[in-house]
């Protein structure tokens, strides 16, 4: 096992009587492209929020790059980049202004911030509208800008919540190549997505959360090996996901009830 970039110990978050994340013990190695999966309402976004400082855990600990988040929040935040749920953009700035704002908030000097902003806007194909406010961007453009802001300071861990949602195929291809290069350079990428094909193609390691509990964790090969039967090595991530999450049966929608549609 490589050096751990993210380690959580009994990480728990409760909202009143509801336990959204329940004693999650997660380990993500440095430089891994890590997929974090789960059905709707499983606790993915809550976990990411706790790992990025947007939500305080009810109990348990989270360590990033060897630093305890609760004890060293500023030092940890310097090392990570985040595309939060809803993207968290200041919509009354232009794309360039927002990137310059974020760069300066991370303490980059002005020339570096300026140069990186321009390069990122070029890469994301957002540079031809220097005066357009983010409020007037399409959803896909906002997503690309949020991604650019998340990497402007060269983070060592990148948290991406549904990064390709709404992004066109051309930009998505370039982004995937960029993220692949980043992992080669040792950056850890923690990604959630409902598109299992993307996760399967990009991620080397996966964890599955269901009803707030971590139900599977490991490399894709390890998860495949866990599936019974001779066909285990050919099992897709979707089949693995369904076999783990759908074990309780109650989650599977009953198609027979919609017979009038078929």
């Amino acid at each position: 096992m490589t050096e751990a970039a993210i380690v959580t110990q009994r990480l728990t978050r409760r909202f009143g009587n509801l336990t959204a994340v329940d004693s999650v013990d997660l380990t993500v190695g440095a430089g891994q492209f890590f997929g974090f999966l789960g059905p709707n309402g499983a606790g993915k976004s809550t976990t990411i929020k706790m790992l990025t400082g947007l939500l305080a855990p009810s109990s348990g600990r989270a360590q990033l790059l060897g630093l305890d988040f609760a004890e060293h929040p500023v030092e940890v935040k310097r090392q990570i980049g985040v595309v939060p749920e809803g993207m968290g953009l200041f919509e009354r700035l232009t794309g360039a202004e927002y990137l310059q704002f974020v760069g300066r908030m991370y303490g980059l000097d002005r020339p570096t911030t300026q140069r990186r902003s321009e390069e990122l806007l070029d890469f994301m194909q957002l540079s031809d509208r220097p005066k357009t406010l983010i409020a007037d961007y399409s959803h896909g453009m906002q997503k690309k800008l949020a991604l650019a802001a998340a990497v402007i300071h060269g983070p060592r861990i990148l948290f991406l919540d549904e990064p390709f949602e709404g992004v066109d195929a051309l930009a998505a291809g370039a982004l995937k190549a960029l993220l692949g290069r980043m992992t080669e350079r040792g950056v850890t990428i923690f990604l959630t997505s409902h598109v299992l094909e993307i996760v399967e193609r990009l991620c080397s390691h996966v964890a599955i959360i269901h009803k707030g509990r971590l139900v599977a964790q490991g490399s894709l090969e390890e998860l495949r090996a866990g599936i019974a039967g001779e066909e285990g090595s050919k099992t897709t991530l979707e089949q693995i996901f369904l076999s783990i999450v759908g074990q309780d049966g109650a989650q599977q929608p009953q198609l027979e009830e919609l017979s009038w549609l078929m």
Partner: protein
Amino acid sequence: MADVARVPGVWEQIRLVAGLRWRILRNGLRKKNNQWDLIGMIFAGVFASLFVLGLCLAFYFGAYTFLSGGHEAWIAFLFWGIFLFWQLVPIFTAGFGAGFEFRTLLRFPLSLRAFYLIGLAYGLSDFAAVASSCWLIAMIIGASVANPSVLPSMLLISALFLLMNITLERMIGSWLERILARRRSREIFFAIFILLAVSLQFLNPLLQRYGRAAQPWARQLLPYLSVFPPSLAGQAIAGAAQNHFTDTLIGVAGISAYALLFSVFLWMRFATQYRGEELSETAAPARTVVRPVSQTAEHSDALRLLSPQVAAVLRKEFRYLTRNSFAFFLLIMPPVFVLLFTTQFAGRHPTATRHPVSTELFFPGMMAYLLLILMAPAYNSFAYDGKGIQTFFTSPVSFREVFLGKNLLQAGMLAFELSLSMAAFSYLVGLPSLPVLLATLAAIVFNVTGQLAIANWSSLSFPRKLNFGQMRGQRQSGMAVLVSFGTQILLGCISAPILFMSRWTGDKWLPAEVFAFLAAAAIAGYSSSLDPLAVLAEKKKETLIEALSR
């Protein structure tokens, strides 16, 4: 073939839309935060009913008096009242924001005719339409009691007048919807509205000064009003009462022509919507062009004395201020108020008082009033950040820096506004004596720093999201308003006796000295409040993000 057994009729569709609106209202009130809104709505409903019923009596007696007293043509004034209310109130209550758009119903299998009729029916559910219809009924009853022979004419004219008003109101509404769909036009519209509101402040002084001279000019305009629908309605009723049926016919024909004309325009407008109309403001797909030289290059850093984070927040706040038409136009208010109040209460010839108020009293009072207006936004300083608040929490900064950046802009804006107002004050009535001037300046520093510390706490504790360029639903949190008023009253209660100390003790410089000491203490207090506030921000982050990311 889809399993559609039958296409629902127009009336059934209208009933479904009415049911939809009712459920949207009811479900909205089930939210915990909206319980107070329900109580507010009950109060508003009671007051609105009293208002409508009270005016029903007025319209009844008005119509009765005009027709029984031989002043039949004067009934046009009542029609004018209804017409103006019906057309203007929906424009102001539209709130310059997007509400429930009945256009969204177009996804369902509606014919253009059904869409048009539902649109008209939708117009009838407005408060202005309901109230105006009640007043029309009151007029019909009043006129018929006074002169039973006008009942058929009143019924016909009122029906045509009602149809004309609904059609016109819907036509204006649908055009407004088209125009206000775009953020930029919404903000321009909003700015014009603010300017009009400011201009109205000058109406009374202008009328007092030029009212008599304008009367003959206004009288010359009156005959031209006779071609408008309310005058035509009045003419038709007067004709019926006096057996001048030509006048009645002209009136009926005129209102019918207006109704027809507006119907054609409304049909065309609805037909455009029916065919499919793009109102979104999302940018079109990117064109591949050579990237221009960056427009945002900043070669000199005027803020180099500040930390990068504080400077970044300050820059962002300045950009937000200049792009927020509401906040930006509020900045026009202080010098305008100085102009308005000095002409009314100070100078050689005040319009509102017989003798001018002493500058020694008027100047500190005026500055206190301006502080009251200018400090209000600080009590909900994250209001316009929206989802961007998450960036503050994911960035490696303490909220100390965030508050410093926000407060520095607030203080800079205050300094600019107060300097401008003082310059205007000095030009119009002259400045007070040096001891009073310095005491006022020190009092401003004391008040502003003291308020900023409390306002920062209020911003964290009672956040409420506000949207740019919108009026509807743009309310501050009730607690933030209470804290704001409480703080201003407290600081006012401390400041006022100190200002009067010189009168009691005979020492002109004493208030300035006391305020200088208080200002120093307030600056120290403000400075020491920033770290505890940063800790509080961490504790409150979930509430903040939840409230602002909605």
